[in-house]
């Protein structure tokens, strides 16, 4: 009787491959928005604790990215944009990606709970769990509303930052949550408009694949019309100053104008690419202005004292 023993090929994965698993660009957005939530909070956190909180949020976001790449390796392999990722390219074994993601997720939540506070840790756990279990494993393959509902995971970092500073949640971080939540559909649907063939090949039911381009353009316009006033809400509710208000109104008008242009576009993807690029700038400007607004107010307060 012969017995065949399968042997796992020793790994050739380098440190860079593991960093790539963490989706550094998504991670940087999560850290930036968390930093804003942390800075605009009314309480002052010791810089070391604030740094610890941001590291944990970064690692937690990276863990969610790694688990997403583990589960979605079959989809990634069929899409041009993602085929070179470490798992579908064969540089990291699926089991390695899973172990890496779980270790980082548990580590980030536990360290945040031990060194900062339990509310922030619970929100980080919710964010990772929602992204992996609800978005990646369930919604992404089953409904064109995947990125609408799944967007909640990406919208949580400002709340985590605020909770790290205060130990609780208030209306301001909920507002920031809503801004990112309503920003996500126009951002991702603009991308999926000029990548719809990729999504169709992979069998992902993105809106342009399921409902067509015209319906997607209508939906982008609808969400942009909600997003623009929401973006200005921190100013007219009195949470941010005039500089933020001017930038939010101007960029909000620009994103609505782009959405109208995209809605009117019949063929080609010039407007969708512009919309995708501008949506990134829009979110960055809003959050950067919140940061500038708070830091300048603090500086003026100190100079006056």
């Amino acid at each position: 009787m012969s017995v065949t023993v399968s042997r796992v090929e020793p790994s050739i994965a380098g440190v860079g491959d593991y960093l790539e698993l963490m989706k550094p660009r998504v991670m940087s957005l999560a850290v930036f928005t968390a930093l804003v939530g942390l800075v605009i909070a009314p309480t002052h956190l010791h810089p070391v604790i604030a740094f610890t909180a941001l590291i944990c949020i970064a690692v937690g976001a990276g863990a969610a990215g790694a688990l997403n790449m583990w589960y979605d390796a079959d989809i990634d392999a069929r899409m041009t944009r993602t085929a070179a990722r470490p798992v579908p390219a064969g540089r990291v074994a699926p089991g390695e990606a899973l172990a890496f993601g779980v270790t980082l997720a548990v580590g980030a939540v536990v360290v945040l709970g031990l060194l900062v506070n339990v509310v922030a840790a619970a929100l980080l756990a919710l964010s990772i769990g929602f992204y992996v279990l609800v978005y990646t494993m369930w919604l992404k393959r089953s409904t064109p509303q995947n990125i609408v509902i799944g967007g909640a995971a990406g919208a949580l970092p400002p709340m985590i930052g605020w909770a790290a500073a205060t130990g609780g949640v208030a209306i301001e971080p909920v507002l920031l949550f809503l801004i990112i939540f309503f920003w996500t559909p126009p951002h991702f649907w603009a991308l999926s408009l000029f990548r719809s063939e990729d999504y169709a090949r992979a069998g992902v039911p993105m809106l342009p694949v399921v409902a067509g381009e015209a319906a997607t353009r209508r939906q982008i316009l609808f969400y942009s019309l909600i997003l623009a006033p929401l973006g200005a809400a921190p100013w007219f509710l009195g949470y941010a100053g005039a500089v933020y208000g001017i930038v939010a109104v101007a960029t909000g008008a620009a994103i609505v104008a782009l959405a109208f242009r995209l809605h009117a576009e019949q063929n080609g993807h010039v407007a969708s690419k512009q919309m995708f690029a501008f949506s990134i700038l829009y979110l960055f400007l809003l959050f950067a202005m919140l940061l500038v607004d708070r830091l300048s107010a603090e500086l003026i307060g100190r100079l006056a004292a």
Partner: protein
Amino acid sequence: MTTSAIMNENKPPPSPPPPAGEGTEGVRLTEQQLRARRARSIAIAVSLGVLVVLFYIVTLVKGPGVLVRPL
């Protein structure tokens, strides 16, 4: 000459320990795999070191009430 001495003379000389990267089960790592493993090991060591330093500094910052955390 005793029997055991004769037996020892007939034994082959002990084989040298396997070089780095080669286990007793016959897995031979390529240069690339060895380099990748070394890089991963260093990254894990650095991460653990950072974690230890972080816990140490936070303990200093929080003082004796390090375990008293707001909910």
